[in-house]
């Protein structure tokens, strides 16, 4: 039973890899899991700013309309792309107030792809070319 499960998992993993290494033709990954046509604005406080590859992540604590709090995980581009559009590794810190425009996950989970960020000092940054531009203000 266990062996069969392992075999199946192994085969599934290999099949995934097979489909995968190559899906590389035009971008480093698909952004299809995000709803680009239903962008939203979020305001909140940074809980964590993680400067890593293949993505930079912002954890933001957002107060919603019912005043309950929710932590969102925001996927950004990678340090190379962000550096090239003016970001710095230390420009965001826990406790910072930020305004962001994001494309939320289609799954409804509290995750999103960043489109634009406005820092507390008013500076505005994009998420680099591949992630696309905001379609709301």
């Amino acid at each position, binding site marked *: 039973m266990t062996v069969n499960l392992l075999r199946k*998992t192994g085969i*599934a*993993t*290999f*099949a*995934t*890899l*097979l*489909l*995968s*290494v*190559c*899906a*590389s*033709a*035009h*971008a*480093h*990954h*698909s952004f*299809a*899991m*995000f*709803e680009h046509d239903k962008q939203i604005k979020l305001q909140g406080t940074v809980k*964590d700013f*993680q400067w*890593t*590859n*293949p*993505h930079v*992540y912002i*954890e933001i604590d957002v107060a919603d309309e019912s005043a309950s709090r929710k*932590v969102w*995980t925001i*996927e950004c581009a*990678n*340090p*190379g*792309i962000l*550096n090239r559009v003016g970001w710095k590794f230390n420009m965001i810190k826990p406790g910072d107030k930020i305004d962001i425009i994001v494309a939320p*996950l*289609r*799954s409804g*989970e*509290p*995750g999103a792809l960043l489109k634009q960020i406005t820092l507390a000092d008013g500076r505005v940054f994009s998420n680099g*070319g*591949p992630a696309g531009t905001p379609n709301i203000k």
Partner: protein
Amino acid sequence: MRNASLVLSLAVFASTFSLLHAPSAVAQSERGRSDSGAPANRDFGGTWERYPPATSSASTPGPLAPSAGPPLLASPPPPLKQQYLAEYEAGQKKIREADARGEPIATGYTHCLPDGMPSMMMAMFPMEVLQTAGQVTIIQEAYNQVRRIYIGAPAVPIEDAEPGFWGHSTAKWDGDTLVVDTVGIKDYVRFRNVPHSAQMRISERMHVFDADHFEDQITITDPVYLTSAWTFTWRYQRKPDYKLYEYVCEDNREFADPESGKARMRFKKDE
């Protein structure tokens, strides 16, 4: 007064001399160019980016500087043999449909795997070329990829080529064109999802147009999967002041769902 003037002149001379001879006097635009004595029309040394940019499509031609040669043709579809074509097209359709549903299928990138050859030469991110005696080394920023091309070395027999992501590359000069032959690519390292056998060869003709542009004409042959040679070309423009960033794929919160194979996002609360 005369003494003050003399002191000022000496100071100007000293500062000019020190500027000219300081260890940091290498002009930024010269950084990365080869010290190997290669003539300019055989010198790939330096930092480069795809030209036109790689952001939209690997196969879409775009505007070019006059010096960068004639417009690129769109890369043709892979000339797969009939018995493999249906399965390939079905796979591509499945990927498109999954994207349209908003449920993308996980890729090698989801698993933090690098491009390998020939996808690495798409240069989705900037790349650096080091040209030393008998060797050209290409570093792609994304995933810290490195391939080594040995000029004048004997070709690796294809039946002995240990499979890898970048394979085994040897080269020779044909006039001012560097002709590179690569064998030994792992079967699941694929460009545009196209299957290949251990008999696949990647032949490249790398040619410097001018001080700021070079192109790589790539021809893939595979007697098992392809009916004919598959040829396409990528061009690059010098990015002289650029220093590559490191890229360790240390935390991808996109993961492949073990049951569905779909890419999903992992949350910290799940850890």
